[in-house]
């Protein structure tokens, strides 16, 4: 398409060069080129507009007036197409060509009421209507819903278009001077040109061109252009003075409103500029003596007013704020107070709101209204809204929505990309960005055994420090909240922190925590570090920390027996399955067999035994005679007691100061802990047969009682 149009334009350029070099062939060249105006390609059309302007207007083309008229008649049927090219530069060229073609063709028809008159006249009317319609539009652009904004835009095209419309008015109205083209010359018998109709049309056009003066805001370039151009009408069409003069008289920049699309400084300058042009026009009219006597006085007063206003402004800095600024009023705003196309926060209110968020209306909750009223309100509003404005509003909302969705997906794709990158290695993502360089951290070095121990020691010490501080939650909260980790995370670690929560954590870490890793010497060694720490913690203050010790050893026993039981069960099950696989026909319920065998097996807890033993061994030497409660509690609450543990009590009995405690605990165990009764009796028997007289006596007493 592009290539094709470039080719066409290349050919056209050659034709143009030929035409300009060979004057006598130029009309022929122009006629040929006219056919390209309807080319579908806009750049070809624009080229034609520029070429025609050159031919008709540039003195360099030097075409004889008579030839120009011929060319104008040739071009006329193409003019509407030319004027419809949606390109500002081409449109400007088309306007200039149209003005000339219109004048030449108009005069030709006026003077030659021949066979062609009707078709020429039809084309003229069509061209005129097409141009006039564009003055009220934003051609070559689109009208928006906001008339105020539109009236300040595309001013250039309007200033140009004004030339055409003023020409039409000039040509279609009777003139008061013979100096100009006279419609009066047209025969009243003319087959196409009906003077009264033309005059009515022209009068209506005058209303069109006067509109910018009646706008409630000042579009200075257009207003001054209109005022200046009016000089032709007031000089030639005196019959319209009654219409124009009152309008100029009542035109007052003081009554205009500041546009929402201009600063107050711009508005103040606009007023000054427009006042001056109006003053020049009125002075000109006065000098050319076109003002009818009834208006003379009032127009003179107007001139005097404008002059003194101008002199006033001259003396001061117009941009400086003054008391007069307070009188300046802004035009009521037709646009959206909140036309922001980017969402400030992700919620529906922000997505849909086009009104000022600070106005009271925004806080009104329509959901309080009954549904039927709501429905009729909505229908009413939709019916009354202009479709252009509504679609603009929807546009804004759609843009906000798209933007928000895009922002969200940016976050998501970043995550997804990571996965994608692992799969596809070519590294070009959807946006076409190459990410050849991938920054990856080296995998962490495995900790050596010693390092692990060191690290674990650190952890355990922290726990113990915490415990020593009393394990208060305030101390936990010292987690660095500024490091970017939300405080929520540190809170969730333990739902509600109790002063002893640390011990649960630590014991579980030693048992279940470590067991989840493959069991090895390493891990048991690491676990032992924790256990040692717990033991030391207990021994440091046995009176206060018996709870911790009991809790720990219970957990120790429980987790170990559960694990070991499962292990045993797996072994047994495997054994039976194996058996079954070897001889499927053997009698017996396999489940039953497994259960029976499990029942007969005692699950060993060697780790528990070891540490409970250590604890007791360490505890017993330090027990005071008064520590009855602690020791009995220990004896009753430890989940399992081995024979060697019970034997440890013997040393208590042997100590004269604490022998009471020893016997008491044996008695207690015999009474309340049947599984270890036999161990206790064994201990008593041992003592009864021993060589210590005092122990003998006490032991025999108890043996007699419980054996």
């Amino acid at each position, binding site marked *: 398409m592009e290539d094709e149009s470039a080719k066409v334009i290349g050919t056209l350029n050659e034709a143009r060069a030929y035409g300009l070099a060979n004057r006598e062939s130029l009309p022929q060249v122009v006629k040929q080129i006219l056919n390209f105006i309807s080319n579908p390609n806009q750049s070809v059309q624009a080229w034609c507009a520029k070429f025609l302007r050159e031919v008709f207007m540039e003195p360099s083309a030097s075409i004889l007036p008579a030839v120009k008229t011929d060319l104008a008649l040739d071009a006329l049927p193409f003019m509407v197409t030319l004027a419809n090219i949606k390109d500002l530069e081409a449109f400007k060229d088309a306007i200039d060509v149209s003005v000339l073609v219109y004048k030449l063709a108009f005069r030709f028809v006026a003077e030659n009421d021949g066979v062609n008159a009707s078709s020429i006249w039809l084309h003229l009317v069509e061209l005129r209507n097409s141009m006039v319609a564009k003055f009220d539009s934003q051609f070559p652009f689109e009208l928006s819903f906001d008339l105020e904004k539109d009236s300040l835009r595309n001013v250039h095209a309007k200033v140009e278009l004004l030339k055409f419309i003023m020409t039409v008015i000039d040509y279609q109205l009777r003139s008061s001077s013979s100096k100009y*083209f006279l419609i009066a010359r047209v025969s009243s018998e003319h087959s196409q040109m009906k003077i009264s109709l033309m005059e009515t049309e022209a009068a209506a056009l005058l209303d069109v061109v006067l509109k910018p003066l009646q706008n409630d805001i000042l579009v200075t370039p257009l207003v001054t252009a209109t005022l200046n151009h009016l000089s032709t009408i007031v000089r030639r069409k005196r019959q319209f003075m009654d219409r124009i003069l009152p309008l100029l008289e009542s035109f007052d920049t003081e009554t205009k409103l500041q546009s929402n699309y201009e600063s107050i400084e711009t508005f103040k300058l606009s007023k000054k500029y427009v006042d001056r042009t109006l003053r020049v026009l009125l002075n000109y009219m006065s000098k050319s003596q076109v003002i009818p006597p009834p208006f003379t006085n009032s127009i003179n007063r107007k001139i005097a007013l404008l002059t003194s206003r101008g002199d006033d*402004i001259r003396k001061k800095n117009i941009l400086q704020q003054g008391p007069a600024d307070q009188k300046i009023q802004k035009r009521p705003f037709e646009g959206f107070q909140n036309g922001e196309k980017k969402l400030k926060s992700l919620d529906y209110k922000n997505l849909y709101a086009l009104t000022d968020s600070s106005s009271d209306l925004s806080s009104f909750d329509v959901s309080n209204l009954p549904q039927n009223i709501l429905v009729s309100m909505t229908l009413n509003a939709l019916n009354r809204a202009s479709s252009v404005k509504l679609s603009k509003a929807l546009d804004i909302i759609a843009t906000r929505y798209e933007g928000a969705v895009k922002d969200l997906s940016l976050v998501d794709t970043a995550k997804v990309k990571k996965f994608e990158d692992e799969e596809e290695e070519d590294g070009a993502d959807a946006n076409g960005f190459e990410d050849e360089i991938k920054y990856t951290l080296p995998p962490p070095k495995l900790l050596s055994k010693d390092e692990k121990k060191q690290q674990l020691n650190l952890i355990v010490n922290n726990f113990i420090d915490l415990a020593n501080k009393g394990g208060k939650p305030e101390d936990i909260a010292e987690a660095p909240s500024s490091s970017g980790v939300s405080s929520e995370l540190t809170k969730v670690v333990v739902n509600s922190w109790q002063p002893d929560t640390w011990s649960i954590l630590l014991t579980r870490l030693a048992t279940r925590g470590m067991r989840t890793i493959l069991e090895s010497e390493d891990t048991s060694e690491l676990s032992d570090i924790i256990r040692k720490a717990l033991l030391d913690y207990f021994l440091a203050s046995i009176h206060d920390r018996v709870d911790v010790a009991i809790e720990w050893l219970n957990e120790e026993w429980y987790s170990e027996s559960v694990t070991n039981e499962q292990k045993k069960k797996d072994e047994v099950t495997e054994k039976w399955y194996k058996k079954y696989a070897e001889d499927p026909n053997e009698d017996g319920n396999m489940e039953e067999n497994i259960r029976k065998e499990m029942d007969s097996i005692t699950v060993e807890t060697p780790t528990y035994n070891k540490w409970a033993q250590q604890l007791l061994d360490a505890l017993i030497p330090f027990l005071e005679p008064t520590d009855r409660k602690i020791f009995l509690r220990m004896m009753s609450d430890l989940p399992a007691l081995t024979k060697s543990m019970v034997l440890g009590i013997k040393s208590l009995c042997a100590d004269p100061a604490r022998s009471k405690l020893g016997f008491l605990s044996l008695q207690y165990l015999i009474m309340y802990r049947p599984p270890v009764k036999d161990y206790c009796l064994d201990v008593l028997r041992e003592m009864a047969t021993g060589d210590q007289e005092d122990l003998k006596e006490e032991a025999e007493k108890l043996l007699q009682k419980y054996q």
Partner: protein
Amino acid sequence: MGLDDLRLCTVCAANNNRSMEAHKQLLEAGFSPRSFGTGSSVKLPGPSADKPNVYPFGTPYEDIYQDLISLEHRKMYEAQGLISMLLRNKKVKKAPEKWHNNAGAGKFDLVITCEERCFDSVLEDLLQRMNNKSEEAELLDVRQAVHIINVDIKDDNENAKIGGKGIVKLVRLIHDYSKRKQEAGEALIDEDGYPIILEDEMMKILTEWQKEHTHLPTLYSVSYY
């Protein structure tokens, strides 16, 4: 648009001081301006306020210069800066030209006047021209829009220089308008797809310029001829 594509001219009363200083500065800035005077003749200061030295437009600056240096008040003219002014003018162009007779210069896009009186005079002359053509001339003529801006400059050496500087800046603002927008990374179309067109932004440009040049009051009008 190249710098010399912008058809522009400066206008003061005698086409000697303000319009010539601006003419010179615009030339130096790369533009191809013309300059004119709106007075009935070229009036330069004489021995006293009621005895000016008067020359018809078209008298070469060289002749005026020779005339003044041969007069008995030569010293005074030198002190007033008249002599150096003429020396400058000689380098810019041959002779002062009258606005009203400039039809041969073609149509301008932009006319910068240096005094309110001149602004009024130019506007009025354009109104007059729209109505004074012969029927035949008017038939073959298509009017052209012209922007007229007045920058009020006091008529002395120093102010002519300051004013000339201001005019160059303003002309640059207008001429480079779309280029500046583009360089600033701003879109050349607005949200409704409208191009940012100079004519639509003229008032904004003038406001911005006026804010920086409060001592050079402006006037503005769009006319045709």
